[in-house]
């Protein structure tokens, strides 16, 4: 299990990286943290002609408080996100979620840009980008564009990113005051991919839920928002009967696959239970109970 030979290009700038991608015409892959890519190379599931190593590009790893949003550079490592005071202050749900991402040695290398671009169906970061309404900043030789997390994840391991494009920044709009959060995950072993995970935020205003967000991973080809359940809760008081309806709506909205690790029914039941817990904790943290 050794990678096939490839041409190795160290990019010293974003411009050089995308120029190399454009010249390669689909034959090149970006090497960021490598924690998903290198296993695929070792197995020779992928045999790119060129690897463009972006690890030495200066200024691509940062976490910056930019007023109404937090900007995160694509090369920011998982462990940096996990331990960042800026993230802890504005997105404690993300700090907590990061402790569920693989193991320390993986978190030391893996990057947010890599995780979002790779889009494993059971990964935490795509779900968190969806929950937090991330805007992804993408560059190519033709220019820059942005895409919302909601439109970015197309299918399993498939995102709205062309062969000559590079994800450079992730912007997370800050959450309103009086927002509580919950995060629940079940995996077979700490650090394994989730059998199912749910992340939720609830914003309370005048005793009612101004906004509820519920995101899930591990229950389909891409992470999903439970839009129907969110709509049920919006503007309503958090009464037990309503919360039960919303949790049932989460269960009804997903159709997970059966695989070696869990059946479809088990995953749906799990997602429902985890949604219940995540919403209850989010309400508590928002100060509603």
């Amino acid at each position, binding site marked *: *299990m*050794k*990678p*096939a*030979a*490839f*041409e*190795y*290009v160290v990019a010293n700038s974003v411009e050089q990286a995308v120029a190399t991608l454009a010249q390669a015409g689909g034959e090149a892959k970006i*090497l960021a943290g*490598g*924690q998903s890519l*290198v*296993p695929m*190379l*070792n*197995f020779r599931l992928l045999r790119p002609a060129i*690897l463009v*190593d972006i*690890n030495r590009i200066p200024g691509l790893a940062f976490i910056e408080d930019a007023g109404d949003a937090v900007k995160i550079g694509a090369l920011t490592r998982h*462990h940096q996100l996990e*331990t960042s005071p800026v993230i802890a202050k504005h997105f404690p749900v993300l700090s907590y979620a990061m402790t569920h991402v*693989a*193991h*320390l*040695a*993986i978190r*030391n*290398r893996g990057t947010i840009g890599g995780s979002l671009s790779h889009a494993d169906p059971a990964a935490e970061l795509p779900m968190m980008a969806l929950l937090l309404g991330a805007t992804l900043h993408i560059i190519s030789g033709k220019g820059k564009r942005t895409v919302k997390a909601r439109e970015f994840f197309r299918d399993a391991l498939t995102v709205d990113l062309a062969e000559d494009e590079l994800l450079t920044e992730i912007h997370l709009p800050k959450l309103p005051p009086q927002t509580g959060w919950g995060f629940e995950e079940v995996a077979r*072993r*700490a*650090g*394994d991919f989730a059998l199912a995970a749910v992340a939720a935020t609830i914003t309370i205003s005048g005793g009612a839920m101004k906004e509820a967000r519920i995101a899930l991973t591990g229950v389909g080809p891409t992470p999903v928002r439970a839009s129907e359940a969110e709509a049920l809760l919006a503007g309503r008081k958090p009464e037990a009967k309503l919360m039960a309806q919303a949790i049932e709506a989460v269960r009804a909205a997903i159709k997970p696959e059966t695989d070696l690790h869990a059946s479809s029914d088990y995953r749906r039941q799990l997602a429902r239970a985890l949604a219940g817990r995540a919403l209850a904790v989010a309400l508590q943290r928002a100060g509603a109970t």
Partner: protein
Amino acid sequence: MSGRRDIRVTINSVVYERAVEPRLLLADFLRDTLGLTGTHVGCEHGVCGACTVLVDGDSVRACLMFAVQADGCTVETVESLGRIGGLNPLQESFHAHHALQCGFCTPGILMTATDLLKKYPLATDDEIREGLSGNLCRCTGYEHIVKAIRAVKAGAAR
């Protein structure tokens, strides 16, 4: 350009200069090119943790990084921790608590534990177990490994 690249890596305080193929994994560079066989290779896809080393102070899987990427970096392997007759406190604790049987996973677990002790409070056995969840040991059942790390933590706290 898939030809060899000149790299310069400081490993356990020794500077090595070699020309390597870009596809050469750091784990194979350590073992095969340099003969530093303390680092073990298990699964070669980032699951077993046997090849864990420190790169610039952070634990990484040496099978998920290319040797060329370590150019200019400082690498520490299990050989840096101690030697026979002069084990470091973590190794001493593994010895005292019978935290190894066949020993295949041990180098990776020692390097992982070195980083865990640096970065996490490890206040409970659950936290130690979670920290070790990326390192597969098929002999010990982990009980003695947890005890050994707990003892080092307790010693460090005194």
